[in-house]
């Protein structure tokens, strides 16, 4: 009876078996014969590794569809069940045929690759044994997974996709390192090269998984007279299809979102750094070069000043501020101040040459303010709708705070610079709405000056408190890194916030700026 079953399967699917086997060998030939791949690959067995990871699963999918899924979908298993033999034998024949086809194909492929590489491999018994063991165990595992999946009928594709997506996500998120976890570790980059070390634990784990899936497959095919498998094999209704699709897409979207939000978990530490800390504020200052005694004092003093600056900043931005790391880099020029562009969750990293003669604390504090604003708002402070405040806020804050020891000459120069650039500006309130045009036409620095002048004008008219209030309204609270930030900006745009904190609209603010520049251009003190 077993013979009859085998002959029945061959009659039904014989051509398919031959074509499938042939296609696997075609894949092998295609890769072996490719001259570029022969140059890149270090071994002909890398071709086998590629086949094991690609064509073997596809082949197993096709075989399981033919031998298992189609049988139950077309309900032809009922005829087989009418035969005088146990159901488990029927399933065993299918199981054996499926694995037999796959294993035959991969063994032939491995042998062919071995023959082709015989002059470039040091073939030993151990090496041959390790290769064969990995090949056979992996193929057995893949075969049993798809054998079991075949019994899941209408849900097999969806569940298979869930499993694949879940595994990929677990791998990229770092929960599971698939490259080091059996059975996937059997076909990793070392497959074609490991000649001495038998992966005993991986092989054992793979065999265990293969046994588990074999049991699952047989259980689905045998439990309750195979009615479970028969029910699962029925076609999905339209509603079922919709639910499954929605569920699948929902899982993909959630995983995608979680993956996008994933950032480096390891906290940044600067070895040997001096630390200043109070609730909601943390500053670390280190030197990238073993400093001289004199330099160490300068760096320590700079750190104290920076911390004082950050403490003041909580008058502008709600705590907690992002952690700030400052690295003294003697290889940089005094005027070079770099933002290390850490992910927002890790904080702000600034690099500067703190002991250079031309190092400017005021400039550094401005850059630091800009970086903190950028980190806090995930870059939104640089967008057009907020940049008219953000561009000049660091300069205004440092001048207002008194840390910027700019003389009257510099202030007059700023005002003159702003005044002279007025002729090409957009008229009226649109000046603030089209800030990117200003940046493009006049440049980043002149735009910052205009922004400063706007805030200075506001401060002169309504007091520093008005500017602080405006800055807090714009940047005070942390901004979520998703569409809510945009929605908040739409529902509570800059003009509303300006009006709420100062009672002015853009047109009035522009008039205030013009008046300020006209009055200051004569050199009157600010």
């Amino acid at each position, binding site marked *: 009876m077993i013979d009859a079953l085998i002959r029945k399967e061959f009659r039904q699917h014989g051509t398919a078996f031959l074509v499938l086997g042939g296609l696997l060998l075609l894949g092998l030939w295609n890769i072996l014969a490719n001259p570029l791949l022969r*140059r890149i690959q270090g*071994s002909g067995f890398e071709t086998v590794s590629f086949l094991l990871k690609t064509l073997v699963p596809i082949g197993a999918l096709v075989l399981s569809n033919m031998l298992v899924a189609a049988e139950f979908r077309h309900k032809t298993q009922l005829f087989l069940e009418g035969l005088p033999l146990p159901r488990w034998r029927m399933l065993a024949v299918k199981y054996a045929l499926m694995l037999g086809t796959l294993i035959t194909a991969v063994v032939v492929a491995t042998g062919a690759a071995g023959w082709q590489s015989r002059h470039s491999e040091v073939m030993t018994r151990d090496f041959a044994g390790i290769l064969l063991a990995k090949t056979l165990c992996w193929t057995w595992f893949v075969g049993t997974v798809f054998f079991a999946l075949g019994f899941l009928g209408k849900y097999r594709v969806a569940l298979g996709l869930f499993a694949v997506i879940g595994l990929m996500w677990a791998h990229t998120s770092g929960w599971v390192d698939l490259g080091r976890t059996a059975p996937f570790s059997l076909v990793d980059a070392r497959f074609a090269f490991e000649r001495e070390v038998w992966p005993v634990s991986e092989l054992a784990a793979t065999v265990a998984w293969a046994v588990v899936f074999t049991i699952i497959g047989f259980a689905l095919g045998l439990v309750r007279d195979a009615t479970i498998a028969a029910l699962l094999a029925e076609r999905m209704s339209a509603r079922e299809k919709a639910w499954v699709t929605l569920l699948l897409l929902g899982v993909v979207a959630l995983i995608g979102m979680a993956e996008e939000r994933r950032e480096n978990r390891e906290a940044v530490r600067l070895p040997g750094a001096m630390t200043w800390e109070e609730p909601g504020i943390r500053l670390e200052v280190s030197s990238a070069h073993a400093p001289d005694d004199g330099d160490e004092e300068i760096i320590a003093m700079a750190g104290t000043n920076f911390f004082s600056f950050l403490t003041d900043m909580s008058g502008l931005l709600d705590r907690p501020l992002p952690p700030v790391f400052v690295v003294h880099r003697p290889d940089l020029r005094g005027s070079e101040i770099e933002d290390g562009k850490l992910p927002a969750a*890790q904080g702000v990293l600034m690099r500067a040459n703190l002991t250079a003669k031309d190092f400017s604390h005021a400039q550094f504090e401005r850059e630091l303010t800009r970086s903190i604003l950028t980190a806090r708002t995930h870059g939104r402070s640089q967008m057009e709708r907020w940049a008219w405040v953000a561009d000049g806020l660091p300069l205004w804050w440092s001048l207002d705070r008194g840390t910027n020891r700019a003389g009257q000459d510099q202030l007059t120069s700023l005002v003159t610079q702003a005044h002279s650039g007025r002729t090409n500006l957009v008229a009226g309130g649109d000046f603030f709405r089209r800030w990117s045009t200003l940046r493009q036409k006049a440049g980043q620095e002149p735009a910052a000056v205009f922004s400063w002048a706007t805030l200075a004008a506001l401060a002169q008219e309504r007091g520093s408190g008005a500017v602080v209030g405006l800055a807090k309204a714009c940047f005070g609270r942390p901004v979520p890194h998703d569409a809510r930030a945009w929605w908040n900006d739409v529902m509570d745009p800059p003009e509303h916030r300006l009006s709420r904190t100062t009672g002015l609209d853009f047109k009035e603010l522009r008039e205030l700026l013009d008046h300020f520049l006209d009055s200051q251009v004569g050199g009157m003190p600010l």
Partner: protein
Amino acid sequence: MRQLILKEVRGLKPWVGLAVLLSLFGLVLTLGTEFPDEQTFDPSKFLGEEVEAAIITMLLITVLTGAGLLVNEEENGTLLFLDGLPLSRTRIFLAKIAAAIIVLGAILLFEITQIAGLGLLSQDSASGPFPWRFLAVETALLYAMMISSLGVVLLLSFLRTWLALALGLLVVGHLMLQMESTPVAALFDPVQLVRPGVDGARIEVPWKHLGTQFGVGLVCAALAWVGFVRLGGRRSRSATGIVGVLRRLTGFALRAAIPVVWIAALIIVGKDLEDDDNNHRPGREIAFARETTAHYEFLFREDQRPHAEPLIQGADKVFETVADFLGIPSARGRVVVDLAGPLVHHAAGQAHWKKVRMSLNPAEDLESLKAVLGHETTHVCIDLASDSVATGRLDWARWFHEGLSTYVEMRFFGQDAQQEELDRVSAHALDRGTIRFGEFVVDAEFARHRDPNLVYPLGQLWCKALVNTYGDGAPGRVCRAMTRAGVRAASDADGFWRTALQQSGYDLERVNAAFNSELRHLEEKHAEWLESYPPISGHVTIEGAEIVLRPQYEISRAASNATLVARLTDRRPEELIESEFFLPENDGCIRVARNRFPGATIRFQWGWTPERKDGAGRFSLFEKWEEAVVR
């Protein structure tokens, strides 16, 4: 006919729903993780990586739509009902095609509307006019790609269960052809089709690609029509008569032929490969030999023995030097050194897990060969120390792999002239633009703009800075730190390296500071030498059937013994595996046949090849990649 088309469109509703859902979930993903008003639609950015995601999505939808369009009628038993209508199979076929085209168009339009909507939301006052023309052209090209793919899918759909396998083989076959960089493969590449050349307002449509792929699609659709017309036809299964016997014999012969053909093909190809190997050996010697040392297994041809033996005798010392430096107790077995295998062009060696391939060039002296062996052995030892993490993250670690291997090579086996060459290449790189650690750490990003081989000198310089700052044990410690969970879980290259050094007790900033200082020092030291290699720019034109590159540089400054070279591609530079150098002709221009690079955008990189002293030297001095849109 209209009713028929509507009926077919209704039948495709589930796929429309699926496509819309996929698109909406993509939108949800964007809204949940990014700002919708920061999705600027920029043609050059879109033609970079974004278009590949669009291609995959559209092709997937095309496959899902076309897979059952024709054959499902027979499977569902509805073909008989259709045959009962006063309509020819051809009309039904045309109605199905029309419905599929309408549905695919609607899906594409939905996707494009989203992209345009987010793009418009992200416009600011300085953005300039929205690139509607580009969007329209790109939409048309994507649509053309989908329609031509539909033809192929319709034809393959008759394979039914085997459709996925057939498509998979098609993709693999196409990738193989692409790796060969054959111009023919490029014409069939859907990615090249939907990447028109964009130069400001000018958009160069890849007409050749469009014509080729559309033509293939039409031919496949025509064959699918034939198949559909004959679908469900009566098959005579008569067991009697000569015809029946002949049919059964033919069927048996065909089935029997399959394994015979494949086995024969394997034997023939295997023989061809062996002959191929034979042809590359001058003496046609076929005997291979093997020699074992304490740490290596050498494979070579007998005719290589005179050159191999001195290397083999000194090999163990090489391994011990490298292993001591990186703190590797043993390789847990021997490292195989294949002296007879094929190598990537322009490479002296290649390393894999416990296996090295290197060429045994008779013109090279023993010290040079030892240096190569030392370099490749370092790769193997890095893998051993990092438990293959460094190779697993090669896009973030290639610079470290090559840099550390070059450092070990130079320090223990190299010669002064080689070190000077590396220093000069580093100086030249800085002269052509700022070099920051974050730039060369991500290999694909670096290769997009610069010569990817710069990772050798720059990586070597960085490793030198690491050793100078933290001592000889530092590289080994960093390699071992990579095995820790915190390092492997890093989400970006900067985080990976910062964490790896942190876990080793080191400060990345200190090493980078030392690296920067040394780089600037080299630029100053070799300033006079750099004067002899002025910057080169140039432009590209099409003249007849040729691509012509005309260089521009200060001729008076150029060293008389330097050779001008260029790299050329119509693909993205980071996709190149092996690149070819082109040399100018007598008129100073470089000429290449147009059909060698049929794409709409030609990317080129000028460079100088300095005179080689004593035959040494392996680097050319390249400018940054440039691109030009051509017809």
